[in-house]
């Protein structure tokens, strides 16, 4: 199995290993007796087949399997949300009714937004890729609380069930923002949906709790904070936002439910309440939530760009700390969604000012990634292709975000398709691309197989073209004054809408191809090697697919994950005498 070329030796005392009170930094690690363990190619037993049967999946506490179950759930929601989007686009082909009536349209865009955000994008990277990769990147056998992790998956499912009940018993037509007093007075089953999202929030919170503790407490020997893969910095910052912001969403939705059930009057002007207060409550969560949706993507992009450039990441600390900076400042800008809502001019000014500050750390990241590519050895594999698409599209989305932060301009652009285009550029064009980059990047580790590189590139191209054809015209018609959430529109906007709809069809074709080649890879893909990308990171030093307990030998981390100038042998270190 493992080559045993002893690398460093030293005395092991109970203290140094057992850890009682001593943390294993660089110095202590030197004292460990460590050996080189090359990963096994084509393992016979791995986490996918270690146990068999449906029940072994449903009751698993293995973070990798939980990650895959999330992947399945999220894929379903993306399909539903995306199909709804295509229906929306088709309806918008003509200025008046095309094939559905106004109430249906309103329900569909609400569901599209709510599903895409709460059920797809917020859990996408943390719960799928984070769950799968975080413990492995830490050199741990699992997350700190594996049972809690499984519980959070089921909580997610329960939330989803509530949402489905809501859809089948009247649906909701409030928009994903649930603004009062519309949401407290409209028909339909708003309560069910808010309860669903409320429950979902706990799933998100538990994942956050789990990740924070795991990152703090379960790092492998030698894995000090300055060697933490940037993906983990991203997930760490995300978890912080999740635990600080999600509870406020929970209380908001609870108050909204009570508003509908008992008419508590806090938000309902008919009872003396203040609807703008609801917006504060809502955005206090939902703005940070947009960073829940993008910061883990930043982590993935850092990994991918460095791996496929075979080069040390440029500005490690700048990238790591800017994630935390974004997380922090992101909490203070929520009012930029309310510039026209009737908040005080003072608050408006403060929010606008703070909004601009978020752009700085984000820019730092972009420039550091570019600098990482400089003088690299760049290979344009699918994950890298998606990362570059991300760079392009996210930058556009980010810049238009800055545009929206500019007060006088936002007065004109607020609630037009310019905003719709902005957030699709950051969410679909940014985060979904980052998610796809990560999915293609870690796919071999997840399933032990390779997908077809050719079809992957075809699909990426179609998605890229389709995306821009769909959403770029929306910037123009938005600036022209086309309001969002409009079922009918005036004739002058039709050419833009038609172009946009055609784009969405191209995208759907792209995603269909993706679904096919990924399923094909799943069933009879070519076997992947343990480290197909030649990466130095810890997760690539174990077999593909990963073993049931991640590491057969407690790994020891001597170098940073991006130290491409060091020989591979220095990255395959484990404690010599302990074996599971």
């Amino acid at each position, binding site marked *: 199995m493992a080559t045993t070329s002893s690398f460093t030796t030293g005395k092991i005392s109970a203290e140094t290993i057992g850890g009682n*009170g001593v943390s294993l930094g660089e110095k202590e690690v030197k004292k460990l007796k460590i050996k080189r363990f090359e990963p096994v190619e084509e393992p016979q037993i791995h986490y996918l087949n270690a146990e068999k049967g449906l029940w072994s999946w449903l009751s698993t506490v293995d973070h990798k399997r939980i990650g895959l179950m999330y992947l399945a759930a999220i894929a379903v929601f993306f399909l539903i949300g995306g199909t709804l989007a295509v229906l929306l686009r088709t309806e918008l082909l003509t200025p008046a009714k095309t094939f559905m009536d106004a109430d249906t349209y309103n329900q569909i865009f609400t569901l599209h937004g709510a599903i895409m955000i709460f059920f797809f994008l917020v859990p996408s990277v943390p719960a799928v890729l984070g769950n799968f990769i975080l413990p492995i990147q830490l050199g741990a056998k699992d997350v700190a609380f594996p049972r809690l992790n499984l519980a959070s998956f089921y909580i997610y499912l329960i939330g989803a069930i509530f949402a489905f009940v809501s859809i089948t018993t009247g649906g909701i037509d409030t928009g994903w923002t649930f603004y009062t007093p519309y949401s407290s007075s409209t028909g339909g089953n708003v309560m069910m949906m808010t309860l669903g999202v409320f429950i979902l929030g706990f799933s998100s919170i538990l994942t956050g709790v789990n990740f924070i503790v795991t990152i703090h407490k379960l790092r492998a020997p030698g894995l000090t904070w*300055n060697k933490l893969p940037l993906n983990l910095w991203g997930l760490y910052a995300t978890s912080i936002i999740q635990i600080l912001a999600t509870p406020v969403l929970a209380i908001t939705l609870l108050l909204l439910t009570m508003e509908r059930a008992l008419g508590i009057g806090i938000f309902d002007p008919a009872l003396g309440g203040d609807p703008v207060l609801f917006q504060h409550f809502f955005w206090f969560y939902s703005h940070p939530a947009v960073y829940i949706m993008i910061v883990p993507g930043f982590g993935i992009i850092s990994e991918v760009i460095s791996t496929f450039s075979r080069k040390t990441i440029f500005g490690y600390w700048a990238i790591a700390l800017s994630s935390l900076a974004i997380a922090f400042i992101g909490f203070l800008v929520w009012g930029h969604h309310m510039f026209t809502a009737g908040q*005080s001019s003072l608050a408006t000014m403060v929010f606008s000012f703070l909004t601009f500050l978020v752009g700085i750390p984000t820019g730092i990241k972009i420039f550091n990634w570019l600098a990482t590519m400089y003088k690299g050895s760049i290979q344009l594999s699918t994950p890298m292709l998606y990362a570059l698409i991300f760079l392009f599209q996210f930058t556009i989305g980010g810049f238009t975000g800055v545009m929206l932060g500019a007060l006088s301009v936002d007065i004109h652009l607020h609630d037009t398709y310019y905003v719709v285009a902005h957030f699709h550029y950051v969410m679909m064009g940014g985060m979904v691309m980052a998610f796809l980059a990560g999915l293609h990047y870690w796919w071999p580790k997840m399933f032990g197989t390779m997908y077809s590189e050719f079809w992957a590139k075809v699909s990426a191209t179609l998605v890229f073209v389709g995306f821009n054809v769909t959403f770029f015209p929306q910037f123009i018609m938005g600036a022209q004054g086309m309001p969002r959430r409009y079922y009918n529109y005036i004739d002058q906007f039709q050419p833009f809408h038609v172009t946009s709809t055609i784009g969405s069809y191209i995208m759907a074709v792209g995603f269909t191809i993706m679904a096919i080649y990924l399923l094909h890879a799943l069933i009879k893909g070519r076997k992947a090697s343990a480290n197909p990308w030649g990466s130095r990171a810890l997760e690539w030093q174990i077999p593909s697919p990963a073993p049931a307990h991640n590491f057969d030998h407690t790994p020891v981390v001597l170098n940073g994950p991006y130290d491409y100038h060091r020989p591979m042998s220095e990255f395959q270190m484990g404690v010599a005498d302990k074996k599971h």
Partner: protein
Amino acid sequence: MSTAPHSSEATHSEHHHHVSSATFIWLIGTALFVLTAITVGVHFIHIPAPWNIIVAIGVAVVKAFLVVAFFMNLYWDSKFNSLLLVMSIVFLVLLFGITLLDTLFRADPIPAF
């Protein structure tokens, strides 16, 4: 974040958890009872407007501090857990503060007719 961050977490020594003596627990408990009595007493004296709430909240803060530091053992615990608590308070204050920037400073136009 320094390069040797563990040291901040590795505050208290070796394996021993802090064990408070029974007397100490009762001492804190008594202090809390007394403070409750004081704050109710002050309430019945009726001191003038802004001060009554300041005193009441002040006493509550002291009480909360006692509970958190000595019942929840934060005083002897890893500093990171204290940091968590401080962070949650900081974010609460930001939530309150910034929202008040709006709600306290709205000037409504008066309709002319």
